[in-house]
């Protein structure tokens, strides 16, 4: 069985400017921040970011990596809005394809299932359709005479045809993984991480630590805590604290003090410069050392 271990920087070296990149997690929860930080340090640019947005989107915007964001929201959870995202939007620096959260899920699902679209009511009547004029409706081919039409109200209806959201690459962060690329989520929600991987050409997983193949499940954690199987994974890297400062229980909660500092740094270019020099434009080991320093002995 292949050993898929690589380093975080190896993953980022496979990315190219202009790519469409899916980022797992949700809001300020279990985001693959080690990879996000590595992208911030790289010379990549012009990226399209596809995410249930949190500080991943904010950091990438603040460091000028982003051309476009596909999302339903960007939030820091305990802080309603990411101020870096807000600033980038209000300065007109990034494009956005804003869709309903459920449409977003169906877009990933369609890509993972290799169908061009999936139908849904979500989006009908809303400005999601007028703001994204390339989105199309699809008419149900089942009329009232069809043996499959159980309910006349469903005959011939027009639904939103949510297009497949194809990704050039996707990255997710999990609590445990094995070297073959099976990934375990010990925090309460696996979110849409497996779908991000399923929708992508190149699939990257980072993990708090490695466990021997066959040992992810044990007496406390059933196999249902391993939603990512190795067919979804091209490469896996160890990244301790790799989701910091987002929430990644049971390994660690959200670092609220750090997040507040991150958000406050959006207020003034000089503050952001200081923050970026200290916490963004430094190698990951140095970042983690500075985080440990903050937390004290």
């Amino acid at each position: 069985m292949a050993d898929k271990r690589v380093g975080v920087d190896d993953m980022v070296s496979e990315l190219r400017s202009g790519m469409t990149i899916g980022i797992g997690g949700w809001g300020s929860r279990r985001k693959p921040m080690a990879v996000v930080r590595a992208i911030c340090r790289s010379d990549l640019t012009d990226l399209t970011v596809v995410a249930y947005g949190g500080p991943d989107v904010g950091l990438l915007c603040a460091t000028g990596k982003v051309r476009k964001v596909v999302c339903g929201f960007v939030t820091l959870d305990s802080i309603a809005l990411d101020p870096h995202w807000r600033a980038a939007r209000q300065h007109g620096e990034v494009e956005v394809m804003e869709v309903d959260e459920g449409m977003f899920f169906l877009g990933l699902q369609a890509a993972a299932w290799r169908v061009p679209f999936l139908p849904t009511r979500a989006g009908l009547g809303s400005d999601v359709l007028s703001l994204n004029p390339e989105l199309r409706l699809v008419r149900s081919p089942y009329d009232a005479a069809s043996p499959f039409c159980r309910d006349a109200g469903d005959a011939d209806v027009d639904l939103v045809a949510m297009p497949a959201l194809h990704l050039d690459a996707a990255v997710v962060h999990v609590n445990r993984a094995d070297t073959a690329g099976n990934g375990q989520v010990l925090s309460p929600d696996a979110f849409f991480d497996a779908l991000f991987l399923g929708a992508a050409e190149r699939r990257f997983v980072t993990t708090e630590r490695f466990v021997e193949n066959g040992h992810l499940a044990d007496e406390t954690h059933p196999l249902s805590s391993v939603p990512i199987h190795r067919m979804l994974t091209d490469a896996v890297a160890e990244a301790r604290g790799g989701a910091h400062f987002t929430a990644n229980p049971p390994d660690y909660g959200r670092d609220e003090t750090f997040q507040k500092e991150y958000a406050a740094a959006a207020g003034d270019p000089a503050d952001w410069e200081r923050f970026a020099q200290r916490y963004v434009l430094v190698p990951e080991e140095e970042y983690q050392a500075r985080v440990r320093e903050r937390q004290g002995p």
Partner: protein
Amino acid sequence: MSEPGVTRAEFCVIACADAWRDAGEVMASPFGTIPALGARLAKLTFAPDLVLTDGEAALMVGAPPIATGPDGLMREAAMTYRTVFDVVWSGRRHIMMMASQIDRTGNQNISAVGPHDQPKVQLVGVRGAPGNSVNHPTSYWVPDHSVRTFVEHVDVVCGVGYARAAAAGPAATRYHDVRRVVSNLGVFDFETADRTMRLRSYHPGVRVEDIVAATGFTLTIPETVDETRLPTPEELDTIRVVLDPGSRRDREVKS
């Protein structure tokens, strides 16, 4: 007449709770402190079958005080975000979202103020509002009723109102039901012939003309409008002693 002792925030809690009356076994998804108190109050009193999430990835047992931390909760089933969409699209849910703007036909905006390609104010994003509003009962909570929040036309239609749903056709209207709008001044619904907003009740201490002045469109005012109902002694006790002894409700709506 203002009932001595009952605060504005408490009238708002009662108004929110009443939105879930007779809801049956559905997921109540409240946004904001006062809707959260309303949903819990409803579950503890007249709507015992309501299903509430822990705000993370589970359904919780009972209706604990709102200050309860994650360790103090008992959980009855998983409710991951993936599963939430199954609930939304099955219709077994009544959400109460917030609205940065809401208009006469019930369109709601939480995306952006000003032009969408370069907003004057970027808000959180459309979130699940488009899908929620065409799939299951949807109500709104606006803690700061003013001409800036109750507007003639919202800048971005996130939650879909009656006219937009009708224009989008039968798949949009089928399960569309903008049920109630609760603000710090009163309670509103769309039970008019043309499905535009109507004053349903005003909170004691508020004058109808104050509501009209704080609303940026023509509101239907029925010939007789009642005050928002008083909480029963049991309800008041449940709010004050059981659910919110720390008075978080007063931070959202000042007395």
